[in-house]
Structure formats: structure tokens, C-alpha cells
């Protein structure tokens, strides 16, 4: 009884601590879950072990008999786990290569031992060898409004060969390392028709869907290690060999941390955000460009989506031995990827930084379900990455800016989708692990970013910004679905443009988000037919349309357009005449064939569909235009330069 009282008192203290405000003045989220952990890093055994006290609040109207938790580190237990089956790989042969998490004790707030009530489930694929989801039957079902407290003792063995998480030598990136609650979805939330836990297994392509939580994490580790985490460092004590650090994270969906003795710690500030960058000491020459990139992203997101709500941000540029941790996102902690020698014209480090920072918004603040709707996470984020990179690093040079080669981030994102032979294999409306033929990246990242860019081309940049501002206002620190996003688009477009695009934009999403068709418009031909005066008749006998024209140089001209792809989008058509006149036509893009006809003392010289390249989904820009006077000079110039290059190359290489 005494033990039980002490435990309840302890939990009361935990809840009070977790609900306290240390970082922000007011809670940003509902804080349905919270975690207080005290762990120790064993650098010999490569383990992180300790105790965790956590809670989940049943905010639904359901009586819930169980809880479900992610035990992601078990994905590295064997090659038979779902993660490695999807990866077609192996965690390694040696015991030190494997990763796992063992639950050593599991009690509820009444001190009941829940270990016997634990079972591993595989809701996604039924793989019995996969132990990444834990179900625990509660001693008493959680009634609406109840808070379920649990106290867990666990030991996590980190895997070698870092894949998102693990260790390499003395480098540690500790992510997906503790038992974490799934999300309980009552009927009506997102696509749930009945209440239940949404707790997916660890997959090769996705890992995030969690409630916004408060984290109090105490880490004890060797004193010579330098650390960084998604929380703020609250206190640090040392006893010579070991040190203990206390971190606190508020309203974030995950907590990860890293430790390495050789990190250089650099700091900067943007408005009220303290930025910390951890990187190898001999890579400090790359720090300024990394800080610039993250500040660019902070500025752009703040202006066009919504404020970054935390006063702290840590990002890590892992050393080459920990490169497997690069390019990951944990909201207030993310990892980039650079190297000691990274030419300034190559903007990949900036791109990775901007992209991973962007996840603080798309799945961090607006916590969509990456497992079920990866486009809402990766695709939307890629769309913003493209905009930021091309805005700050040049419209044509967001990815590469070299005198000999310039590539925009928009092109680098569009081309993998357009050139993929599997671009029509599946729509964006698919669970992350079900994308066939390696299409996950092509469809989730690149196709989604491309059709979002196309949507911006149709409704305008300011409208799309307003869409995302509204999306942020409505869904920050909540869990929207794809349908919720579409509803926001419909609402804002209708508000901004009335019925210019119809009663809603569903016609767009049906084709792009939910469809597998491609978009391809083509100028089929230009026909300039000179008027032939009929024999034996006077001009007055001819059709009235020639009235007022000089019949000696009268032309009937036709711009012949076609829709080759399945997708129908409204497009602009610019028609240029020999006398310098230009006409901008609007085509709803629905018919398979479309003719624009003109009569006058002028011929059509050229025709361009989508002259401003707004429809980036169009899979072939080359057939979007046709001219009667082709300009070959640029091609000949290119060929001349290649000719000279080969000649010089041969003269250098041949003795």
C-alpha cells in the first residue's frame, strides 16, 4: 500500500512537471501524451537503458481497453522484420550489429504489473517476426477523460550501420529509441469509422504519426561526449567521468538525441529562435551556408505558412561515419548532410537543410499521418523546399549554380517523376509501404510536389500561400487528413476567386492526387491557308468574315492543339502572328483536340501552350510550342562547344 501511494504521488509529480510551462508561455497542443525518462548511455554495450514514466489521456468518448505503443528499435532485431523485408537487407551478423528494445518492467498507476498483458501485434502485414508494435491490455479500461499512467523499465540496444538511428564507432544518433504511444483515433477523426489505435509498424519508408507531447529526458553519459537533442538543455551536472543532462521538449511529436565527442557546437539566432548546429570540427567551413539555409527557411515559412513556435532549434550535420543519420527530421531537431569539401555551387546541403527543417511544419506542427498519407508530409514539404531553394538561390539555380550548368530545384524535383517509367503505377492515395516498384519517392515526394506546383500555377502564388496559412491556422498541433487539406484548398480558392474554377477544386485533386493519369498538351500544327479568290465571282459573293481585309494577302490561320494525356487542366495559349500581334487564349483543356481560328492579313508564326510553364505536371514541355521559323542557333552553339571540347579533350589525352 505504501508502495502504491508513493507511485501515485510520483505520477502526480510527473504530470505536474510535464504540464508545466518551461519553453513556451502557453501549451501549443492538447498534450494528450507526455514522457519523463531517465536513461543512461552505455558506450561499451551500445545500449540506452532506464526508466520511463508516461501518460495518455483518453480524450475520446470511447472506453478504451488497451494501449498501443511503438517499439521501433525492434525493427533492427533481425532480417525478418518488416523494415528489413521491405529494405531487402539485413541488420548484420554480429550481436553488436543488431538493434532491439526490451521491456523489463511495465506497471500502471495502481502498481499492477502489465508485463503479462503485453503482446506484439502486426496490424500492417501480419508479420509475426515484427515486434515494432506493442499492445497492452489495461487492468481497467480507460473511460472517457481518464488518464492512463504507465511506468516502464526498458533497455534499448542501438544498431550498428546507422540507418536513421544507431551507432558507428563512438558516434551515436539515438532516434526511435523509447516506447512511444500510438495515436488513438475516435470515430470521425481523419478516416476512422470506429474508434481505435492508429499504431503502424516500423517501415522502410515511413515512421511518423504521433501526438504532440512533452518530454522531460535525463541522459547520463560519458562526460567527454557532446550532445544535441530536440529539447532544450535545462541542466547539466558532472562527476568527472560521467555527466547528466536534462532536456525538455514541449509540444513535439518525437524526441531524438545525438552524442559524439568530436562535435563542434555553433550557435546563431534568428528573431527569437536560438539555432544550434552540431557538426564535425573540420567541417566548420560549411557552417555559414547551413545557418543561412535554415534562416532562409525560417523566414519563408514564417511569412507564407505560419510562425515557427519554438524558441530553439538544433540541427546536426553528421560526420561521414554517421552519414546514415543524415536527412532526418524530429521537429526541433533535424539532420542535414554535407562534407568537408562541398563546392558552393552545389546546393545539396542547403536543400537537405531546408527540406528537413520544413518537416517541423509538415508532420511536426501539422501532424499528418506519414504512414497513410505520405504525400501530405513529404510531398507538401518538397513543394515548399522547391519554393524556398529557387527563391533564395535563383529561379534557375536552386540546386546547382555553376557557369556551365544551372539546375533549379523545381526541375530537380519534376524530372524524376516525369522520367519515371512507373509514374502511373499508383496514385498518391496509398499507404507508404504499399507503393509498388520502388515508386514511393517518385510519387510521394516528386509527383506530389509537382502537382502542388501546378496547383499554384493555376490559382496563383498568393492564393496558395493563403491556403497554407489557413491550413496552419486550422490544423497546427492537430492531425489533418488529405481530405482536410483539400477542404482548406476548396475553401480558400472559393473565397479568393469565387466560382472561377468551379464550385470546388475537387476536379483537380481527383485527377492529380487520386488519379494516375499524366498531363500532356501538344501543339499539333499551325495551318496558314492563303485566301484564293474564287474564279468568276466578285469579292462580295464571299463569306462575310473577309469583309474589311485586303484579300490579296488574306490568310485563314488555325492553331491546332491536342490533349495527349488523361489529365485536363485549364491552360493559357499564346499565339504570335507575323505582324507582331499576339493573342492570349484561354483553353479549359478538356477536349482532345482544339482549334483556334483566325482570319486576317497575317499568318500565325508561333504558338505556345502554357507559355509561363505554370503546368509543371506537363510531361513534355517540348511539344507545348511550335514555330514556323525554328531557331536552331542555340543548338548549333551547343554542338560547336561540344565539338571544341572533344577536340581539346583528345589533344590533352592523346600523347
Amino acid at each position, binding site marked *: 500500500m505504501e508502495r502504491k501511494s508513493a507511485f501515485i504521488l510520483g505520477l502526480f509529480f510527473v504530470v505536474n512537471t510535464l504540464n508545466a510551462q518551461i519553453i513556451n508561455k502557453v501549451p501549443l497542443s492538447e498534450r494528450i501524451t507526455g514522457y519523463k525518462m531517465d536513461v543512461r548511455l552505455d558506450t561499451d554495450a551500445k545500449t540506452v537503458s532506464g526508466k520511463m514514466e508516461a501518460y495518455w489521456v483518453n480524450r475520446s468518448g470511447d472506453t478504451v481497453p488497451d494501449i498501443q505503443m511503438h517499439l521501433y528499435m525492434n525493427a533492427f532485431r533481425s532480417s525478418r522484420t518488416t523494415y528489413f523485408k521491405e529494405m531487402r537487407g539485413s541488420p548484420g551478423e554480429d550481436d553488436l550489429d543488431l538493434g532491439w528494445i526490451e521491456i523489463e518492467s511495465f506497471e500502471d498507476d495502481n502498481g499492477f504489473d502489465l508485463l503479462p498483458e503485453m503482446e506484439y501485434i502486426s496490424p500492417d502485414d501480419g508479420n509475426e517476426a515484427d515486434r515494432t508494435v506493442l499492445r497492452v491490455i489495461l487492468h481497467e479500461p480507460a473511460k472517457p477523460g481518464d488518464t492512463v499512467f504507465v511506468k516502464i523499465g526498458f533497455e534499448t540496444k542501438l544498431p550498428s550501420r546507422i540507418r536513421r538511428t544507431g551507432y558507428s564507432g563512438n558516434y551515436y544518433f539515438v532516434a526511435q529509441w523509447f516506447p512511444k504511444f500510438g495515436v488513438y483515433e475516435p470515430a470521425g477523426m481523419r478516416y476512422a469509422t470506429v474508434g481505435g489505435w492508429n499504431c503502424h509498424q516500423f517501415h522502410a519508408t515511413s515512421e511518423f504519426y504521433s501526438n504532440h507531447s512533452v518530454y522531460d529526458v535525463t541522459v547520463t553519459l560519458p562526460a567527454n561526449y557532446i550532445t544535441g537533442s530536440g529539447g532544450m538543455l535545462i541542466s547539466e551536472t558532472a562527476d568527472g567521468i560521467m555527466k547528466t543532462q536534462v532536456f525538455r521538449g514541449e509540444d513535439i511529436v518525437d524526441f531524438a538525441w545525438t552524442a559524439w565527442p568530436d562535435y563542434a557546437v555553433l550557435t546563431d539566432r534568428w528573431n527569437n529562435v536560438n539555432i544550434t548546429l552540431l557538426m564535425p570540427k573540420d567541417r566548420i567551413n560549411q557552417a555559414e551556408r547551413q545557418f543561412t539555409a535554415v534562416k532562409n527557411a525560417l523566414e519563408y515559412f514564417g511569412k507564407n505558412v505560419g510562425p515557427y513556435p519554438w524558441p530553439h532549434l538544433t540541427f546536426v550535420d553528421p560526420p561521414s561515419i554517421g552519414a546514415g543519420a543524415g536527412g532526418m527530421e524530429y521537429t526541433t531537431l533535424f539532420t542535414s548532410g554535407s562534407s*568537408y569539401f562541398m563546392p558552393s555551387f552545389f546546393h545539396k546541403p542547403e536543400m537537405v537543410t531546408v527540406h528537413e527543417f520544413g518537416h517541423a511544419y509538415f508532420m511536426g506542427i501539422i501532424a499528418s499521418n506519414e504512414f497513410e498519407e505520405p504525400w501530405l508530409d513529404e510531398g507538401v514539404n518538397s513543394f515548399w523546399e522547391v519554393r524556398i531553394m529557387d527563391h533564395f538561390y535563383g529561379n534557375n539555380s536552386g540546386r546547382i549554380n555553376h557557369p556551365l550548368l544551372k539546375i533549379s530545384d523545381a526541375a530537380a524535383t519534376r524530372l524524376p517523376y516525369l522520367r519515371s517509367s512507373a509514374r502511373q503505377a499508383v496514385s498518391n492515395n496509398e499507404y507508404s509501404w504499399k507503393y509498388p516498384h520502388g515508386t514511393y519517392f517518385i510519387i510521394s515526394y516528386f509527383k506530389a510536389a509537382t502537382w502542388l506546383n501546378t496547383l499554384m500555377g493555376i490559382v496563383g502564388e498568393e492564393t496558395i500561400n493563403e491556403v497554407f496559412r489557413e491550413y496552419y491556422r486550422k490544423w497546427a498541433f492537430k492531425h489533418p487528413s488529405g481530405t482536410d487539406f483539400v477542404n482548406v484548398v476548396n475553401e480558400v480558392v472559393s473565397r479568393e476567386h469565387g466560382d472561377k474554377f468551379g464550385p470546388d477544386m475537387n476536379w483537380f485533386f481527383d485527377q492529380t492526387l487520386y488519379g494516375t493519369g499524366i498531363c500532356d498538351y501538344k501543339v499539333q500544327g499551325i495551318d496558314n491557308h492563303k485566301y484564293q479568290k474564287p474564279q468568276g465571282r466578285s469579292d462580295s459573293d464571299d463569306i462575310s468574315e473577309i469583309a474589311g481585309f485586303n484579300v490579296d494577302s488574306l490568310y485563314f490561320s488555325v492553331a491546332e492543339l491536342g490533349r495527349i494525356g488523361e489529365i485536363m487542366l485549364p491552360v493559357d495559349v499564346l499565339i504570335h502572328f507575323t505582324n507582331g500581334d499576339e493573342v492570349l487564349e484561354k483553353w479549359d483543356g478538356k477536349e482532345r483536340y482544339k482549334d483556334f481560328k483566325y482570319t486576317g492579313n497575317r499568318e500565325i508564326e508561333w504558338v505556345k501552350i502554357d507559355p509561363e510553364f505554370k503546368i509543371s505536371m506537363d510531361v513534355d514541355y517540348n511539344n507545348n510550342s511550335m514555330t514556323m521559323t525554328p531557331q536552331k542557333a542555340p543548338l548549333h552553339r551547343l554542338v560547336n562547344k561540344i565539338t571544341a571540347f572533344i577536340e581539346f579533350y583528345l589533344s590533352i589525352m592523346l600523347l
Partner: protein
Amino acid sequence: MKVLSSLKTGILRSIRLWKGVLIVWFIMFILVSVLMYPFRSSLGSAFGTSMITEKLEGGFDVEAFADLGSTMKSLVTFFTAGFVIVYLTGFIINAFLTGGLFHSLRKDNEKFSYQEFFRGCSANFWSFLVISLIITLIMSFLSGIIILIPLGIISSSETISEKNAYTLVICAVAFILMIIPLFLLVADYARAGKAANSNLSCFTALGFGFSQTFGKLKSSYILMLFLILAQIALGIIILSIFPAWRPVTGGGVFLLLIISQLMFYFRLLFKTWRYASVTSLMESTLVVKPGNL
């Protein structure tokens, strides 16, 4: 002093040989055009009457080419295969033409004649081909080894810092750059020796090249280093002109062709200067007379 006088003599002899260099330029231009002319036609028909070529006015546009889809793949395949054929053919033709150049660069050939030039080409062809092949293979093999060793060290080490890894690779590349002049000297001495004495077999000539190079290493290396630096200077001038020059009219493009070919001709003259200077240095400080081998 010998180095300077060899360089000076080399200039005079290479200028004297301008017609021979013109022959080399013409043949190389035709050779490369055999690949590039059909490539240009294919490119032209791939873009057809599209106005996407406007995007190329500002330089290479990856989207314009990528949107060609399967046509682009065919173009790349055609270009790659053609380039390999041009390289191999160029290797053989170069062995042939350098025979004429070295023959005409000799001290006793004061006046250029086409007959002598082509006589030298045919007389030296097989020997020069073997010499070029052997030196090229040795250089490629050594370069590969020198690069692979540090890469192996880097990939097998978990503790090496990126800065040290980068420094190691740079050192390896620098070492390769340092030994390249030696191999060029061996090849040039061997060919100059063979041109001076037609009785030499190619392997004897190679031995002569090595003995000349290492027999008077200091003066030879300084000479070659100077010649390479001069060629690098020319390369920098060319690189500062051409990438940024983007004419958009037919006349401008034609001017680009003329200037680029003129530059290539200068480049060949510089290379001939190298042959001539090495030949001159050999003649002035012959350690082992090729005729006595």
C-alpha cells in the same frame, strides 16, 4: 640555358611547322565532325519546330533535354558510342600524325614539305602507336593505383577525419600530376629518338626515352613543367572565353565555331612546341646517341 634555348628553338621549329599542324587540325576536326554532324542533325530533328530551344539561349537547360524522353536516351547512347569510336580512332590517327611532326621537327629538316611529313607519318606509325599505347597504359595503371590506395585507406578507416581524407586524396592527385611530366618526357624522347634514327625498334626507343628522361632529369623536368604551365595558361584563357560566350544568332554561332577552332589550332601549336622543345633538348644534350643504341 639549355632549357631556354630548347624552348626558343622549339618555338621556331613549331612555327616553321604550321602547315603540318594545320594538317593535324584538319584531320582532327573531320574526325570529330564525323560524330558531331549527325549528332547535330539528330538533335535538330529531336527538337523539331519546338520553341523550347529558347530555353537553351541562356545555356544548357536540363529540362529541355530531359523532356525529350526516349529520344534523349537514344541521343546519349549514340553520342557515347560515337565518342568511344572517335577516341580510339583519334588514338591511332594521333600516332600516325605525330610521326610526321617529330620527323619534320628534326634539326636537319629546315624546310617543311608535305612529302617529308607524310613519309615520317608512315615510317614511324607502328613504333609510335606502340609507344603511345604502352605509356598510356602505364600512366592509367599508375594513376589508378595511386588514387585507389588512399581511397582504400579512407574507406577502411572509421577514425580518419574528413579533412585528412580530403588531404590524402589531394596529395594523391598532386603526386599523379607530378609524375605525368615524366611520362610525357619518356614518350616524347622515345618518339624524338625514333624519328632521329629509323633503325630503332619501338622498345629500344622506349628505353632511350627513359634513359634520356632520367639521365638529364632536372633540365628535362623543368622544360616540361614550363611547357605544361604554358598550356594551362592557354587553357585558362580559353575557359574564360567560351563558357560565357552564348551567341544567339547564326552569325554569332559561326564566329564561335571559327574562334574555337582557331583556339584549338593554337592548342595544337603549343603541343607541337612541346615536341619541338624536347627534340631540341635531346639534340643539344644527347646522353646516348640513338644511332648508337
